[in-house]
């Protein structure tokens, strides 16, 4: 039986966190800071998705930005050509990105570790360059323009167009991140999550325990892709335009660095790592030139000194006392 005391304290912690997050724009309505946080939370979404693939299942993926791009372009194209509103467009963006994750995985996963990383890198670049070159469809290097912002009907206020205000996007991303994080925690503690960890630890042994390794790896790719798709749709709706340059190899590496910093496999770590690294570009405003230098150095040092990241290493998700899932 779930330990009720633990569930109660968990509920309280979550409620406090939720209230704090929701109250922030009211207490400190600085749009610039909210924007930074929103960007960092978008990164958190991406980190959560990649965490499923790399952190839990152990599949080296260097082309994650491609799924972000696919989600963004899917919503963008649906909106620009078919007038599809944001709330209807998120689902197809997510589904298409997820399916692409699976489709890319089918050939790629037959290849061994190091090469898999390079293949995913190759795919990522091919997707980006293809989006750049298919000018008639995607607007080429200048990107897709004129994408609608989300519009929400609020009781008493009529239709609110998110426009370029910061607060609505902040709330949107908060809710999205919370939901996705919740699902990820549940997945992590479930039969599927255990199987993913088993695959990461020892594929052969996992297979002999009845775990269908290839199917689950594809499932991880699909889920990771779908999450990136959601982030992509939100990103496209927020920016109003989508340019292929936003989805380069450096983005893929940054998200990877976030989950490594947070600790591979840890949901908490993914969010914390993303918030830390995601707000860094803004914090280092004056030092833009040195950004990659410091970033590279940080990666080297981290692997040398604390490879398990902040919350990584031992993940005791099943113990005698732990209750299952969230709530």
């Amino acid at each position, binding site marked *: 039986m779930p330990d009720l005391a633990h569930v109660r304290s968990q509920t309280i912690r979550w409620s406090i966190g939720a209230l704090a997050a929701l109250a922030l724009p009211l207490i400190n309505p600085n749009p610039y800071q909210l924007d930074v946080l929103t960007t960092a939370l978008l990164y958190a979404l991406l980190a959560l998705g990649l965490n499923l693939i790399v952190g839990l299942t152990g599949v080296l993926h260097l082309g994650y930005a491609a799924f972000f791009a696919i989600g963004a372009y899917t919503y963008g194209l649906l909106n620009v050509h078919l007038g599809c509103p944001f709330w209807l467009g998120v689902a197809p963006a997510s589904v298409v990105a997820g399916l692409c994750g699976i489709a890319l995985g089918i050939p790629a996963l*037959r290849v061994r570790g190091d090469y898999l990383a390079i293949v995913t890198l190759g795919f990522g670049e091919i997707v980006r360059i293809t989006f750049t070159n298919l000018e008639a469809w995607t607007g080429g290097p200048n990107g897709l323009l004129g994408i609608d912002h989300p519009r929400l009907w609020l009781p008493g206020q009529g239709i609110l167009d998110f426009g370029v205000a910061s607060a609505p996007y902040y709330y949107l991303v908060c809710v999205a991140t919370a939901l996705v994080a919740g699902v990820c925690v549940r997945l992590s503690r479930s039969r599927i999550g255990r199987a993913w960890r088993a695959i990461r630890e020892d594929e052969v042994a996992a297979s002999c325990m009845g775990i269908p390794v290839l199917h689950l790896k594809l499932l991880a790719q699909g889920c990771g892709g779908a999450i990136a798709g959601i982030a992509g749709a939100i990103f496209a709706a927020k920016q109003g335009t989508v340019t292929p340059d936003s989805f380069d190899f450096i983005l893929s590496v940054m998200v990877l660095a976030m989950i490594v910093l947070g600790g591979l496999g840890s949901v908490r770590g993914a969010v914390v790592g993303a918030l830390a690294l995601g707000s860094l570009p803004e914090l280092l405003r004056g030092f833009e*030139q040195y950004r990659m*230098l410091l970033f590279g150095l940080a990666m080297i040092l981290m692997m040398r000194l604390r490879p398990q990241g902040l919350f990584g290493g031992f993940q005791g998700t099943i113990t005698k006392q732990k209750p299952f899932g969230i709530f």
Partner: protein
Amino acid sequence: MTPLQLFLQQLANGLTLGAIYALIALGYTMIYGVIQLINFAHGEVFMVGAYAALTIVLLASSAPWWALLPACALAAMTACGVVGAAMERFAYRPIRQAPRLNALITAIGMSFFLQNAIMLLYGATDRQFPNPIPPVRWDIGGVTVTLMQVVIWLTGGSVMIGLQLLVMSTRLGMAMRATAQDLRACALLGIPVNRIIATTFMIGSALAAIGGMLFGLHYGTINFHDGYLVGLKAFTAAVLGGIGNIPGAMVGGVVLGLLEGLGAGYLSSQWKNVFAFVVLVILLLFKPTGLLGERVADRA
């Protein structure tokens, strides 16, 4: 120009490119051979070589070209050798026993670090690479061959022959081959594996350095970002020939250069880079052992 002449011309161009790719590919293949690491930063080492050569060319621009070029080569090789050795000693050696993802991240981090360092030192814009070689050209049956191309072919060819001799006929070469086959056994037999690995890095980096100098000569401009793209193409060449296989890297480089040279005549430049990535992906998916077969240690 007749189609045959066009073909031969592209062939000549492709061979030039191929020599450059081969030199860089050798570094990838040798390093992968000894420590099973895809040295992401190798493309950046190549750039260091190009910029080091550029520095000498600018400093000693009045010297005669046949003295200037060897000086450039020496400077580039020294710079890259140092960078390569430092990379191995401080970033890669400490994590040799760690899981693959760690090594990969370290290599990527090293790549970013070097790329940014070059940018800070030399600026983010394209730099002109002056060509000290006199513009002598010969017309052979309608196909133009420049002195520079000949220099590149001869340099590339002699370096590769030298390497092959080193690896096959010297004690050092034998130790390198043995270490690539079974590191632990070599260590147990008293072979100084750390020194061998460091030497491998230095040699690989020196080769990339020469590649960098030739690259600068051939294209006339260099940019700190070139390392990434050229690096990936050279890696493709290494895999094409069979990773870990030294003659393979030479063959792979030349083949890739030829493909790109021929393709440039018939494909638009926009799709050229996609072409390289597509070749890489198809290779890894369907023939990862490459043309001549890979030579990697057994990881039981």
